[in-house]
């Protein structure tokens, strides 16, 4: 079949429709990210083989592709001589699609031209930056650094990393982790972003361990640790801007920490005391802070995903109305389990269709309580769904703080530039129990846990890097751990000693103003407490 395509406004070129296998058809109309299209189709434009004379068009996005490639039927078909073919070309509405005469059902493995989505990584388990495809000696060995960067000098570190690993030059150049802040961070009283990231990952680990134990001792009712996922929190938190709203699931406390939530504030929430911003209403770990632009956690899984689309839509309209203002995105976090909820599907489909600037961040930690991912989905993880929604996506090593940071920073830029969602799937491992109500030894091998934590613990990995740079040694790490442990204990004791919230907080905030029936019900309760001499304030 002959067809003419108008590409990039150039002269119409003659193209010859390839005899399509179903596999290729599918590829042509799947909404694969453009880079895959360009790369994997070997120069096929929307499934059409280009004429050898015409330069290959640069295809940037699927939408552009749609606009620029107009299929014109050969004269024969136009005249209606080949009615069947003509009707086929329009049978899906306005969009032209390639035709195949080969009956072939597409198998899942045929669908993914990339095979399994690769995991983007910068720093490997030994704390070295290595190109995955280059095992060549000397390529990335940190120990062969001739002149180590001056102790704690971030700018020097950045430039030496750039010259040492040109492959990652762009990532290093734009990494906020490698840039000192203008003012001291209040919690570290230093401007060193990377060292703060390192310290906060340790702080989060310590806080989790101590509060987990506090629950075991009966001092708080519940807790969930983020053991093994610290690089996700800190890596992504440091790549976001303050105006970006965070909608999290529950295992993302490090993001709030990065934004400045103090250990005291975490403990006040977990101990449900009078200083808890949530007024003692929610179970521990359901943090939230308007000041830090972090929406309050709710237990029902997935619900935050569709909400993030709404928030991002607001930002999109704000940006249109106020182009000078710094643009914002919404970022929504969810687990591999929550990705099975109805809200995940609605959220992705809404975001891609309505083109909302946002990031869908999946923490794939291998488990949803006891359910391993093999019982959760049959496809290639979560990220393989992104093209189906017409969404860009990247899979990243969730235990590599530099890679997570780079992926989020890049996704953020893309989301704003295209006003569209981007999906990130961060591969990690939940090395703790699901929560204090869970004993994971009942459904997974302790060897499995040990193997995962020994090999790829995110804190150990960053430790190794810093040690390789000569910025840390065992005793320096140990003393950070010690300081953070003491700080958490102090915050916890302070929070535990405080009174519970006042009874008012039970009836307020149901509505903006207390309606008459709640006034009556509160009075009733107070009378009851008085009658039975039950103390409360």
């Amino acid at each position, binding site marked *: 079949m002959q067809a003419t395509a108008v590409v990039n406004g150039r002269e119409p070129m003659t193209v010859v429709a390839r005899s399509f296998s179903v596999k290729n058809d599918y590829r042509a109309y799947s909404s694969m990210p453009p880079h895959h299209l360009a790369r994997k189709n070997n120069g096929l434009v929307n499934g059409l083989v280009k004429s050898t004379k015409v330069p290959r068009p640069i295809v940037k996005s699927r939408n552009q592709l749609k606009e620029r490639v107009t299929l014109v039927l050969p004269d024969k078909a136009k005249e209606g001589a080949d009615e069947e073919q003509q009707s086929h070309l329009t049978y899906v509405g306005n969009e032209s699609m390639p035709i195949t005469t080969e009956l072939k059902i597409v198998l899942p493995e045929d669908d993914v031209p990339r095979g399994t989505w690769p995991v983007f990584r910068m720093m490997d388990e030994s704390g070295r930056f290595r190109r995955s495809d280059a095992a060549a000696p000397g390529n990335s060995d940190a120990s062969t650094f001739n002149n180590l960067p001056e102790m704690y000098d971030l700018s020097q570190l950045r430039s030496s990393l750039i010259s040492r690993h040109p492959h990652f030059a762009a990532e290093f150049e734009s990494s906020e982790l490698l840039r000192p802040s203008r003012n001291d961070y209040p919690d570290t009283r230093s401007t060193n972003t990377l060292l703060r990231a390192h310290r906060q990952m340790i702080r989060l680990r310590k806080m989790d361990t101590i509060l987990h134990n506090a629950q075991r001792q009966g001092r708080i009712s519940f807790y969930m640790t983020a053991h093994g996922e610290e690089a996700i929190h800190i890596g992504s938190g440091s790549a976001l801007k303050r105006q970006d*709203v965070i*909608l999290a699931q529950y295992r993302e406390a490090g993001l709030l920490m990065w934004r400045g939530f103090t250990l005291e504030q975490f403990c006040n929430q977990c101990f449900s005391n009078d200083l*808890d*911003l*949530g*007024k003692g*209403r*929610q179970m521990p770990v*359901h943090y*939230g*802070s*308007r000041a830090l632009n972090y*929406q*309050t956690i*709710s237990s*029902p899984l997935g*619900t935050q*995903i*569709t*909400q*993030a*689309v*709404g*928030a*991002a*839509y*607001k*930002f*999109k*309209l704000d940006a*249109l*109305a106020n182009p000078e203002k710094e643009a914002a995105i*919404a970022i929504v976090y969810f687990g591999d389990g929550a990705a099975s909820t*109805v*809200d995940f*599907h*609605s*959220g992705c*489909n*809404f975001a891609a*269709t*309505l083109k909302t600037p946002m990031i869908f961040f999946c923490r794939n930690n291998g488990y949803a309580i006891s359910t391993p991912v093999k019982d959760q989905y049959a496809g290639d993880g979560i990220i393989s769904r992104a093209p189906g929604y017409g969404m860009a996506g990247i899979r990243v090593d969730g235990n590599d703080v530099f890679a997570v940071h780079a992926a989020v920073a890049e996704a953020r830029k893309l989301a704003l530039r295209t006003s569209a969602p981007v999906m990130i799937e961060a591969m990690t491992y939940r090395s703790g129990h699901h929560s204090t109500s869970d004993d994971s030894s009942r459904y997974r091998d302790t060897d499995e846990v040990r193997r995962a934590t020994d090999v790829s613990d995110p804190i150990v990995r960053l430790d190794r890097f810093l040690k390789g740079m000569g910025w840390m040694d065992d005793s320096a790490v140990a003393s950070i751990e010690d300081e953070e442990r003491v700080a958490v204990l102090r915050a916890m004791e302070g929070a535990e000693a405080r009174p519970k919230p006042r009874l008012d*907080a039970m009836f*307020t*905030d*149901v*509505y*903006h*103003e207390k*309606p*008459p*029936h*709640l006034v009556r019900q509160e009075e009733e309760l107070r009378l009851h407490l008085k009658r039975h001499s039950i103390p409360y304030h």
Partner: protein
Amino acid sequence: MILRSAAMSSSSSRSALSALLRRNALGRRQRRRHLPAVPLPLPLPLVLRSHSSAAAASSGSAWQPRRLEERRDRPRDCDYDHDHDRDRRPPIADEPDYDTLGPTSRLNLFTAINSAMRTAMRTDPSAIVFGEDVGFGGVFRCSQDLLEEFGRDRVFNTPLSENGIAGMAVGYASAGGTAIAEIQFADYIFPAFDQIVNEMAKFRFRSGNQWNCGGVTLRTPCGAVGHGALYHSQSPEAYLAHTPGIVVVMPRGPRCAKGLLLSSIRSKDPVVFLEPKILYRSAVEEVPDADYEIPLGKAEIVRTGSDVTIVGWGAQLRTLQATCDLAAREGVSCELIDLRTILPWDSECVVSSVRKTGKLIVSHEAPLTCGFGAEVVATLQQECFFHLEAPIQRVCGYDTPFGLVFEQFYLPDEKKNLDAIRRVMDYSK
């Protein structure tokens, strides 16, 4: 409107349409403005042509479904508020004074809803309208011409997912915007229940008042329509009313709908706004062109009386109004109360009325068991125990799904309500 669109899409559309238009109480100008140019692709079953009297007779059936002309969805004035006893009604705080609101237009319910949304969008640049098929005006035409005035970014279609619509509304409001979202039919609100019950309703409380989604208004058409059957007839107000944190509103006619919807959109709490779809075209009223709000949480005494208190909401008010007329002929003076807001409901208004009349009837279309009437009754027996002169009556839908051909039997109509009035009057003889 359903009838009309069905007629329009039939082969004899011209004559059927003009016949319907002749019956339409709208003025000519209005008619031109509000009628869509193309037949509506309504996802509703067509008019029950198959139940012709001949078919029914040949099958030996003892009853026949009501003929078209008898059906309730013909345009009809519903000017409750200009009743003779207007001056005797107790004043309601913050209620608009319609006499001072300036010029009015004759609007039906959908045009009144449209007018409210237009007013809200003009006064609030962050207000957006979205939902399934909302862009072209909505299957009930409530959002017609909004896209032309406010543009694609503020009036748009969403993919077909009710939980997505509700979730998006919550998120948009959480970022400070005003979300006016539409669920195409109340029968399809259930996929959105998680977002309504667990998210929308608890957003403020769970954050300690740091975050809220008060900017949400979820509009949805509800109730019987003549041929809606199981899935185009339901009134889910009781499910919703069991949820602390949301406001549930149902207007009884165009004028009150505009004021209530404007309050709902501007309310600092999330509102589910139920629109009785039977009234979209059939209820016609003089509606102020002005921007006015009717307070939420306040019932309205639609007519004053001394013998029996009758409580209802939404389209049921029309039935109850007719019932009151029938009762008046029997010498019974009824006090008719429209709750308007179902959650939080105005128990004070009902209690003080029942203390006066000593008798109460609650009537709603939704099924009897655990219907919102049960809540009214429970409160009233506690507050008015010594004032009651007769057992409280509930005149409601049956505890069955809403069967297509049985609608006329299912509905708590005038006769059933009149019987209830006679029953309670017997007690005080």
